[in-house]
């Protein structure tokens, strides 16, 4: 599974670097938003066909917020640590890590609100987080717990990394994962703006 994902990325990169233009591939890459919609619909079906899953959410109450809070705190502290190591303003460092894996939004926002260099770091580091999540989720599911898989995925836990989380954990974790993704995605623009104000 993971190998398949890596192969898909490498093949995509090679195709993009080659500058070739093949009709079907161009249509697929230009309409990735439609594929995402299809993905979300079928993930919805996976959740919907699972019986008894919603009563489990009620059992958790406020505990459902523990995961996004842990992710945000971990990412913020990580941003402070990285800023000190690389000797860059803490506001920039924490803004970069506030992307929580949402590389497209973090790169574009920080690139325009701060500078292109910080935007590029935000793009690449959050992209690395998403790609690495595909590889570490199977390990985290066996060595840590199912919620640690969500922590690695960050804001991507509601879309791209969700099928991997579904494969290596259970439907209950998938529901937590979707809730976490929604909360993290809502918080990303707020956190980036707040952190950049510290500069």
């Amino acid at each position, binding site marked *: *599974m993971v190998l*398949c994902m890596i192969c*898909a*990325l490498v093949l*995509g*990169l090679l*195709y*993009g*670097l080659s500058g070739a233009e093949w009709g079907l591939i161009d249509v697929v*890459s230009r309409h*990735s938003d439609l*594929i*995402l*919609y299809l*993905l*979300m*619909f*079928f*993930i*919805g*079906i*996976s*959740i*919907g*066909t*699972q019986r008894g899953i919603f009563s489990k959410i009620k059992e*958790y109450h406020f505990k459902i917020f*523990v*995961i996004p809070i*842990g*992710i945000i*705190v*971990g990412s*913020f*502290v*990580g941003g402070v640590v*990285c800023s000190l*190591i*690389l000797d860059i303003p803490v506001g920039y460092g924490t803004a*970069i*890590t506030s992307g929580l894996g949402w590389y497209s939004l973090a790169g574009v926002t920080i690139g325009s609100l701060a500078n292109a260099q910080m935007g*590029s*770091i*935000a793009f*690449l*580091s*959050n992209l*690395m987080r998403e790609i*690495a999540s595909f590889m570490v989720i199977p390990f985290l599911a066996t060595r*840590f*717990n*199912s*919620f*640690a898989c969500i*922590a*690695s995925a960050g804001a991507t836990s*509601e879309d*791209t990394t969700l*099928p991997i989380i579904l*494969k290596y954990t259970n439907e209950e974790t998938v529901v937590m994962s979707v809730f976490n993704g929604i909360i993290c995605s809502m918080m990303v623009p707020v956190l980036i703006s707040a952190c950049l104000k510290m500069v």
Partner: protein
Amino acid sequence: MDVIIIMCLGILVGRLFLTPRIKKASETISVMCTVLLIFSMGVTLGGNENFLDELSALGFSSLLFFLVPTALSVVIVYLLTRKMTKKETGQERAGE
């Protein structure tokens, strides 16, 4: 927001009209969509003229900005949720 609405539609369709037997098929389609999405992400990245230059110049900083926050997030969430999973396991054992 639109992706969340579409997912909710999927949940409704799955809950009201489909049986758990369809789950396997929908998971397969989900994986196929993910592979396509990752491929198209690679195409977009590779198509960026400055991609290789940016990757080598900012590689180390990006690696650090990915590793430290991700590791800290995993550790903090693991520590916070350890009790939740322990409690669950205990309940499951008691149920057996």
